[in-house]
């Protein structure tokens, strides 16, 4: 904090109008495995100072990775000189005004994570995977860090965090299964449970066949729900709405389906929970969709003021960022999502890409186990199909949500989600003719 105050003094001497200075230091390790062997381990120590300035409405940021007094001075001078040659951000309304009192978020630090033996955890997962599958690939990551924030608006904050993250793909012949979790608190049983689930999917996904394209009732596995909701919440960020790149633009107070979706930065044990956002606003819980009705977009101080809405504490200083996604049944029922006459069960997906951000037309391509369900039971494994639909349609057609909840983030959808399986009616499924 002493260095941050020295930086603040220097910025004030250079007549900077507003600033936010952050410092993060982190120790991280990773063990990566493939073909049921450890292929790499990694260890990283990182330190980073981030500076945001408003100089006569010209906004600039820099990242400092070299910490001698001379290097810091050079970076500050370079930033201010750089910003002077830019142009005014006519829409910027300033930073959040402190001071604030910050409440701890429960269960976001666990000393035990530091002591977790990565090699043992990975070995345990690979062994559990042998129950149903032939080989496994994945990652075990753990992190311990501290972050500090100081702004020109009476904000001073600091927090310490631990996190860990595990992902596994189990493989058997042509079939594969995937599962993952992330957490702030160590839970010994999670690795084994996750590996077993992935290996069961791999075991079930033998001899997959192609089926006809068309409309299917689709059960989205938890990783696919994570992907879908990452898009919904990403499109609720005001920056995207203002850019014309959101299917939620013009939908405020309108009803889109029946579920409730929240951004919850105060989620107990939430992988991305925080006490304060990037400008120091205290974290909160924001209901985005309330029983299907779009209640708000995600805001920082400036976007909220500009749009006469409430700051949701989701700074990013320019582009808002989501914290953790939580969703509830809303007007729907919770239950066995696979209890359907006929449909598809998609356990994982990737490459979610938009044809039109404004309308929400998109496609995503399933990977790992995919199954045809008949009369509530898996009938056979399926391959080479694609979900080609519209995000608003999907939200409107969610019919039931599962009871089981698991916190996860996936390779392309890294906003942690308290995910569940969901049943969506009449999803458009396509495939190549040749």
């Amino acid at each position, binding site marked *: 904090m002493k260095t941050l105050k020295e930086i603040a003094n220097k910025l004030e001497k250079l007549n900077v109008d507003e600033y936010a200075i952050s410092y993060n230091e982190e120790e991280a390790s990773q063990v990566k495995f493939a073909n049921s062997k450890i292929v790499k381990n990694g260890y990283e*120590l990182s330190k980073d100072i981030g500076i945001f300035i408003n100089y006569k409405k010209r906004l600039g940021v820099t990242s400092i990775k070299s910490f001698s007094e001379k290097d810091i001075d050079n970076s500050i001078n370079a930033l201010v000189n750089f910003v002077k040659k*830019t142009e005014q*951000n006519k829409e910027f309304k300033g930073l959040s005004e402190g001071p604030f009192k910050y409440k701890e978020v429960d269960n976001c630090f666990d000393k035990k994570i530091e002591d977790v033996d990565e*090699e043992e955890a990975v070995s345990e997962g690979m062994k559990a995977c042998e129950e149903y599958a032939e080989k496994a690939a994945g990652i075990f990551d753990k992190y311990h860090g501290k972050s500090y924030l100081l702004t020109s608006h009476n904000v001073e904050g600091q927090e310490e965090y631990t996190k860990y993250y595990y992902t596994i793909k189990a493989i058997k012949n042509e079939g594969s299964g995937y599962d993952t979790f992330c957490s702030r608190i160590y839970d010994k049983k999670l690795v084994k449970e996750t590996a077993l689930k992935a290996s069961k999917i791999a075991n079930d996904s033998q001899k997959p066949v192609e089926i006809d394209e068309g409309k299917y009732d689709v059960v989205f596995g938890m990783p696919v729900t994570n992907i879908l909701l990452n898009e919904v919440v990403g499109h609720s960020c005001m920056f995207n709405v203002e850019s014309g790149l959101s299917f939620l633009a013009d939908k405020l107070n309108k009803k889109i389906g029946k579920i409730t979706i929240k951004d919850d930065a105060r989620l107990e044990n939430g992988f991305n929970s925080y006490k304060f956002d990037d400008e120091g606003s205290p974290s909160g819980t924001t209901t985005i969709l309330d029983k299907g009705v779009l209640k708000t977009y995600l805001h920082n101080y400036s976007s909220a003021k500009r749009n006469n809405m409430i700051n949701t504490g989701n700074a990013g200083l320019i582009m808002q960022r989501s914290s953790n996604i939580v969703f509830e049944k809303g007007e729907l029922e919770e239950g066995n999502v696979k209890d359907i006459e006929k449909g598809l069960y998609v356990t994982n997906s990737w490459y979610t890409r938009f044809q039109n951000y404004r309308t929400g037309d998109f496609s995503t391509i399933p990977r790992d186990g995919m199954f045809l369900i008949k009369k509530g039971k898996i009938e056979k494994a399926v391959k*080479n199909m694609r979900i080609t639909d519209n995000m608003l349609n999907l939200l409107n057609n969610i019919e039931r949500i599962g009871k089981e909840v698991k916190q996860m983030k996936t390779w392309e959808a890294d906003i942690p989600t308290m995910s569940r399986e969901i049943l969506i009616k009449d999803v458009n499924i*396509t495939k190549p003719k040749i």
Partner: protein
Amino acid sequence: MEEIAEYILNLLKENKAGYCEVRAEKVKSSAFVLKNSNLELGETSVNVGIGARYTINGSLGFLAVNDFNKEKIKELVEKSIRLTKKCQKKSDNVSFGESDINIQDYKVKQNINLESVDASDYLKTLNEVDNSIKDVDGRYFQLSSEVANKYFINSDGSKIKAEIPRVGVFYLLTLVEGSKSLNRKGELGMTGGFEVLNSFKLNERVVNEVNALKNTLNRGVKLKSEAMDVVCGPEVVGIAVHESGGHPYEADRICGRESAQAGESFLNKDYLGKQLGNEKVTIVDDPTIESGYGYFLYDDEGVKAKRKFLMKDGVVNDFLHNRETAVAMGMKNNGSARASDYNKEVLVRMSNTLMLPGDHEDEEIIKDVKKGVYIKNFMEWNIDDKRWQQKYVGSEAYLIEKGEIVKPVINPVLEITTPALYKAIDAIGKKIELHAGSCGKGEPMQGIPVSMGGPMIRLRNVHIK
């Protein structure tokens, strides 16, 4: 930085590492975000750090640091070595084999040095484009430049210094007409100095694209699902060769190393020598193309870069390798190792991937189509994790009848398997264009600059909707 790199290499040697290498990087960068005529933000940063990789009895360790305090580095190296030894019993017995010793120092020439240019010079270009298309509803531009200085040393004795400057532009446009709307995304990037930005002819390019999309919004028709000829412009050819003519040839996917993240490949060693595409089709990956966004002369393992023929005359010819996969598959390394930052592990990556030109004029390709669609550029795309079936959705596209372009088509969809795509090609143009992209792989995700492209091509009688 160089002294610290050597200090780390010596520490690893003292700790009885087998093969070891150290990459020190200093990247000076600037970036701008312009949204609907409003400059949201400018960024200027210097990213400095060192990454090191080593083996101990076949167990592969990686460490990264940006605090150059020697005592702290020593502690980090010791911690890393403890973990590497612990992982040994379950390790994949990684070997880097033998490689040439290279000692080189190279720099990409900048006609206008990026560090001599003011922020206002960059903004002039963005403002000019934005002013030309003020009637477009959504206008989002990102402009970035960087000068990356790398210093690489390894225990074999290689020592490579490189300075590579790059400039890139990304834009996303939203056009709305009543209840109809269209998006267009574009990405341009090259290696070089500030002169690169002028060479993009950004204003002319974007204005032409906007006019074409306005025409599509007003006059465009949706296609019925049917089989017909499809002509693809270089941008579409580029994404196709990147996704299904490049990624499946990455040997670390083939070996299963990236299985849980970027996926695997339908290819394996048995495919080498087999006909997968039309004999007219040759696809190369070539880091040595000057000005290519993925340019380098020595890869991130210090190995000399070269052109690799992945598909030659329609036959699967070679895979992309780093030292590790070359040993694992018993093949020859071809210098395809890249890492996006000092703190990311080296993976097998593409650089500049393209289909080589054929013998047709573009006009001839279209003239010989009775009924078909010309997809000039694209918006949505994706491909499965074994690179078997892919989808490309046109942004600017036209219906062709009796050899003539007759009217615009709204978002035609080509959904096709990889063998069907490359077998259906019956004509390849003479003129090549390269487009830019950021290719994602690894965990944490490594976005890396690449070029991709080729000439205009024609697919005969494929399904489109």
